């Protein structure tokens, strides 16, 4: 940003943050100082704020932290970021001089104090518990904690209450697992060959019971099953179904036998069932795996889950891993599906210097961004192991560590894309091993055909691979 405003804002980034073109157009219309009675910046240029006269009697208050594009607006829009935030950001780019230096007002200070430690731009600020507390509720929780310290009896009562709720939930989950076991036995008895026909109804009923049993994680897995089967190629559907149901059975066994599991795997199974780890807890967990490195954003994908939450996955590839290793991280954010599309905080190809804190897991993959600074637009990938065998070995190792995982990112070099049939592509290597690609990606991946061997990262679920990114002789390729 020109002038006295520092940070990462640029027009490209703002356009990428916009949830849709309509928001951007609306923001462009708001780029008039006359509509902003207040436009100011902090002395260090790291925070900008303004008041925009909207349709309400009082102006909307908008604040943006330029270092990480974090924002807050008091308007009732359900788009994130809203047009006011986008307009303020655009003005910071186009007319930085219109922001007068001033002392930070109380409402901006208050918001900054409430912000969680995350430094990365977040379309939705709550990672692990999407339906859980937002920024303001986090402040309320902090206030409650202070209260508890002041009143030990109240704190003890609250703790007892939490324990009781926890035990009730544990019991409900086990009851849900009983339901799940019975359902799987029924499906086996009827035969999995006919599952596709009865799947929609049967899956919905079980999913509802699992939600009642407070096992939302399992309910989501069950609900996704029908859609995933539909997406998989016909010949591999039976195996996909077999693998997924077997995974559910393993979760059920492992959950009942938690005490015998290593800590990391116990965390995995609890998360698979639906227990969540609070973001703050993870960031404060000193035992959690932390990796500070230079990361390439290789894919961003947004998907609406069966529970009507939009999940935004950002895949990062460590550009400087220890020799001989490949490290990939997954950042997941959630938002209400009803809010429509949400602008992505990162764009594929971007390189960031960041510390990532991984959730405790037998096969660490998902993490939180603890701190980040944008580094460059695009950067070279690290050297990846050659051929598909290396990728399969990584997948098998992860599957052995974390048996119920659905899919695992495989990164390898020296592979080519070939056609298997009219609508089917596959990766292959010099040994003739093949890795079938998701049919939904056929048209987007066609330009990879005919290229010299390249490096690639795919998401492999045992039946079909989803291409995330490729590093080729004519530049990087990213999934649409």
């Amino acid at each position, binding site marked *: 940003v020109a002038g006295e405003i520092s940070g990462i804002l640029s027009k490209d980034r703002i*356009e990428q943050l916009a949830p849709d073109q309509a928001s951007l157009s609306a923001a462009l219309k708001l780029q008039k100082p006359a509509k902003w009675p207040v436009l100011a910046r902090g002395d260090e240029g790291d925070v900008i704020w303004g008041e925009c006269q909207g349709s309400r009697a009082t102006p909307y208050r908008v604040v943006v932290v330029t270092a990480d594009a974090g924002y807050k607006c008091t308007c009732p829009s359900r788009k994130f970021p809203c047009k006011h935030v986008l307009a303020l950001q655009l003005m910071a780019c186009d007319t930085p001089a219109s922001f007068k230096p001033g002392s930070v007002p109380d409402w901006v200070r208050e918001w900054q104090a409430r912000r969680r430690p995350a430094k990365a731009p977040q379309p939705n600020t709550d990672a692990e518990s999407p339906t859980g507390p937002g920024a303001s509720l986090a402040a309320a929780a902090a206030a409650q904690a202070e209260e508890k310290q002041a009143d030990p009896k109240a704190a003890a009562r609250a703790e007892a209450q939490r324990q009781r709720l926890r035990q009730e939930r544990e019991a409900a989950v086990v009851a849900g697992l009983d339901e799940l076991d019975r359902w799987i036995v029924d499906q*086996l008895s009827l*035969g*999995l060959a006919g599952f596709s026909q009865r799947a929609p109804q049967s899956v919905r009923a079980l999913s509802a019971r699992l939600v009642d049993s407070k096992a939302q994680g399992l309910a989501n897995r069950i609900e996704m099953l029908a859609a995933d089967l539909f997406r998989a190629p016909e010949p591999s559907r039976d195996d996909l179904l077999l693998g997924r149901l077997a995974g559910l059975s393993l979760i059920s066994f492992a959950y009942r036998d938690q005490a015998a599991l290593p800590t990391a795997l116990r965390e995995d199974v609890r998360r698979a069932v639906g227990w969540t780890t609070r973001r703050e807890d993870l960031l404060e967990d000193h035992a959690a795996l932390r990796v500070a490195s230079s990361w390439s954003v290789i894919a961003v994908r947004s998907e609406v889950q069966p529970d009507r939450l939009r999940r935004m996955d950002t895949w990062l590839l460590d550009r400087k891993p220890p020799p001989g290793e490949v490290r990939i991280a997954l950042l997941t954010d959630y938002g209400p599906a009803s809010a429509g599309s949400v602008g992505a905080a990162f764009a594929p190809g971007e390189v960031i210097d960041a510390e990532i804190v991984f959730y405790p897991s037998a096969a660490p993959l998902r993490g939180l961004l603890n701190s980040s600074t944008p580094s460059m637009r695009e950067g070279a990938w690290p050297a990846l192991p050659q051929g598909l065998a290396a990728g399969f070995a990584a997948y098998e190792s992860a599957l052995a560590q974390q048996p119920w995982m659905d899919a695992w990112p495989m990164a390898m070099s020296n592979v080519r894309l070939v056609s298997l049939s009219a609508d089917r*592509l596959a990766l292959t290597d010099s040994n003739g*091993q093949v890795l*079938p690609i998701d049919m939904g990606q056929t*048209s987007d991946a066609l330009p990879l055909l005919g290229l010299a061997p390249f490096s690639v990262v795919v998401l492999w679920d045992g039946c079909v691979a989803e291409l995330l990114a490729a590093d080729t002789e004519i*530049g990087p390729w990213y999934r649409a």
Partner: protein
Amino acid sequence: MKGMSRAEIEGLRQAMLLGTSRRALMPPPALQAILASKEGVDPSLYIFALAGQQRRFERPSVALPHEVPQAAMHLHRDPLPILPAAARRAFMRLLDIVGKDLATVVIPAAMRRVTAAGMRLHPFDLPRLVPHLKASQETLGIAERAFLALAEAPAKDDRPDLLSMEITAENWIDAPKSQRRLFLRRQRMADPAATRALIESALPQESAAGRADLLRTLVVRLGPDDVGLIESFARDRSNLVREAATFLLARVRGTPDHAKRLGTAAQCFQRKKGAAKSLLSMVGVAKSATLAYIPPPSFDFNKQLAAVETLFEGISLPDIAGATGCTEQDILDVLPEDDVVFWAFHATAMLEGDTSTQQVLTEHQLMATRVFPEAYTLVRLVAAGALPVSVPQANSILASERWSKVVVNASVTDAQDFGQLVLTAALLPTQVLPQFRSTIAGVSPVASRLALAFADIVAAIAADRPSD
């Protein structure tokens, strides 16, 4: 899970698929010890979970893949340089922000700028451009044609016609129809007689539709020498071919039929009785006050329009100027704005590949009309592949009061650009676009962003090719 053989796993899998009520799950020896320790639990669940899990470790076994299709090789063998990164980003940004209504005109215009710079689009961007590639098949390069072939049949080369690296006099007959047309039109521009001979030799092997298609390419630099060939098809058994022959014969300059139609059309431009030409108009400084456009009378306006359209079909602006003894500018000056005759001249110039007349018509539309053309007029010009106007003309346009009014209008409203700004950008030469940017600097970003995005592409291409 060591100890469970592939055959055992397959047996369990079959039982699970058929249903354990039909075929019981028999635990393999390797699992019996585990099951014995799990009393009170349905053994089928254990067997299922472990067998299912073991299958997840199996690597895919697929028959040997097909070879990489020829189309994919062509896609990456196009010798033209790929659009540089900055221009590519600008191009994709334009694609992101342009609305559906304008995309069909603006994106092909941007693609033409890429082609004109001697570059090609990045192969990874082609999947997003398929509708535009299909709509502009005549102007596609090797890579784009190969990608279309690939998109139609990724596994095999079902469309060899799309794969020719370079269309020549030797292989043109095997090219897709749109490419053949383009090739023949170019050849006709250079050497009408030799191209006629090429067409004549190919006609006997063609289907009726193919014969009609080939004959119609003779429209470029059509002349009396072509009459013999065309007349030989005037009694063809196919109606399509007869229609093509009639279409051409009516356009051959110098024939009695054409002369008669041209005479009738020229009568629409009449000198006013008793009016003397002013000195200024004679030297081309002022509009001619002596010429009037009087279309054939009719009680019905629509019928009049249709009659004029038919009358002027295939008659060019230079034809009329010659027949009336006026300058081309005189003719254009007396035509009502956006008149059907103007567009008939435009269609003829396009069909005949007469780029200089096309440019005259475009410049007239941008320079000489009372008000600056609205978006719908510009859409017609750009969609027809109008070339950028000359630098002096472009400078005059941007300095004109009519353009200032457009800019003022766009500045006082918050409305988005419905095409007037971006299509003007598409009709301006590269050298003038910086000036264009500065004229719209005060325009609301909502209105200017499409035009600026288009200008960004052109600027990024020019930056990569500073010598151009």
